[in-house]
């Protein structure tokens, strides 16, 4: 199966390990992610005020490019996914808005393309049982805390990936890989997002609560689908006060655990760039 792929700015720079492992595991499962031939930034925030249609232009331009290429476009970055999916939903419901944006961009976006997260794609094909069958190196005994954050799930009305308060999609994936998903109360809490640039102290407090909670519940690793969550949870453990006070816990993308469990070579794991090094967990 070939599916168009929108990497987004962060996956081509800061989160290259996510991109690399994502492409590798998809390929191993028979899904070829074909990067859109031409793409720009999605805008990274979805416009919320009803009269702010300008901010829909960037994501619509992406959807237009995707529509030329096929029926679906896959994203890995939770932020890009959030923005593109909500734009798709909005322009499905609001035809007047779609016309206005098309008039502005001078491109005819028809509203046919469907935005999917790689998690959704794999849940449907090969499915969790199918995935479990392809695991060659089960992550036996690995206690992994699935951390969903906010943008992947909310608002449910427009995203509809999973339950916004008690999601299970990452839990199911981890079970298929042979790992033991660790429930912890902060798993749908926000990490602070871009507030980390402006108010690092606030963001650090938020990350500290999340990391501490995962650790108290016995997790050995935190699993995420969002590059900003990865940074916000990983970086302060090394570079600020709170990390030095307790044990560290690595923060990885779900695709990286998949790469390990599917027996892909170490360069496909993309695990070498983190503050808290996750690799010792996977060395026999």
């Amino acid at each position, binding site marked *: 199966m070939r599916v168009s792929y929108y990497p987004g*700015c*962060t996956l*081509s*720079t*800061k989160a*290259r390990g996510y991109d690399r492992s994502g492409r590798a595991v998809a390929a191993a499962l028979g899904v070829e992610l074909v990067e859109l031939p*031409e*793409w*720009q*930034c999605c*805008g*990274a*925030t*979805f*416009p*919320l*005020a*009803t*009269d*702010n249609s*300008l901010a829909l*232009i*960037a994501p619509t*331009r992406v959807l237009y490019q995707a529509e030329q290429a096929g029926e679906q476009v896959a994203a890995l970055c939770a932020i890009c996914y959030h923005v593109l999916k909500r734009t798709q939903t909005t322009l499905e419901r609001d035809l007047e808005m779609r016309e206005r944006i098309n008039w*502005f*961009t001078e491109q005819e976006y028809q509203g046919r393309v469907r935005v999917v997260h790689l998690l959704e794609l794999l849940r449907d094909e090969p499915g969790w049982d199918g995935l479990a069958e392809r695991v060659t190196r089960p992550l036996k005994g690995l206690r992994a805390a699935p951390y969903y*954050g*906010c*943008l992947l799930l*909310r*608002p*449910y009305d427009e995203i509809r990936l999973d339950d*916004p*308060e008690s999601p299970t999609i990452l839990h199911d994936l981890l079970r298929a890989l042979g790992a033991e998903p660790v429930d912890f109360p902060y798993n*749908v*809490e*926000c990490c*602070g*997002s*871009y*507030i980390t*640039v*402006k*108010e690092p102290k*606030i963001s650090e*407090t*938020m990350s500290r609560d999340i990391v501490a909670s995962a650790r108290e519940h016995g997790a050995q690793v935190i699993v995420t689908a969002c590059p900003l969550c990865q940074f916000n949870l990983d*970086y302060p453990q090394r*570079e600020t006060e709170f990390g030095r006070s307790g044990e560290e816990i690595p923060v990885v993308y779900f695709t990286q655990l998949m790469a390990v469990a599917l027996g892909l070579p170490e360069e496909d794991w993309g695990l070498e*760039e983190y503050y808290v090094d996750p690799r010792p967990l996977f060395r026999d």
Partner: protein
Amino acid sequence: MATAFELDLTFGREVQTRSGAPVLRCYFCQKCTAGCPVAYAMDYKPAQVLRLIQLGQRDVVLSSSAIWLCVGCEACGTRCPNQIRLAPMFDTLRYMALEEGYSPDPAVYALHRSFLDSIRLWGRVHELTMLMEYKLRSPFGSDLLADIRVGLTLLLKGKITHLPERVRGLAQVRRLYKEAERRSSTEVET
């Protein structure tokens, strides 16, 4: 400073219409405040902002720091028993504050400007130049040296590249910017 009872009875309706969030429905259960990860840093908590809107306190709300702290995680809107989505409400309040001449939190504004400028220049976000611009735009005692440390670590880890990528459709991206700016009424200078 607003005196205690300067009522603006149009305020609530205006916020409701522009945000699509039925803010007048709130009966103050405070679930939003309880679940908000940044509430502790706000001058008025999310539920208090709702109540101030209902009480027509335009000036108090639009000059509060709370409206600039919401990051739109949508925890509040997901949990509200009255289906009030506070994230669109906060976004609307930020627009209203800009339109009515309240000065935005300079750091937030600098961040948003730098982000937009990065895309205008390259079509994609380039963290290094974006954050450099942000730092230069924020002369308000920001800790430049601390951030140089973060930047250097990221560069050394190969996490941010020295040179930005440019996209092929850049000419169109820039044309869209020009058009958008011509139409935008919320452009402010700091």
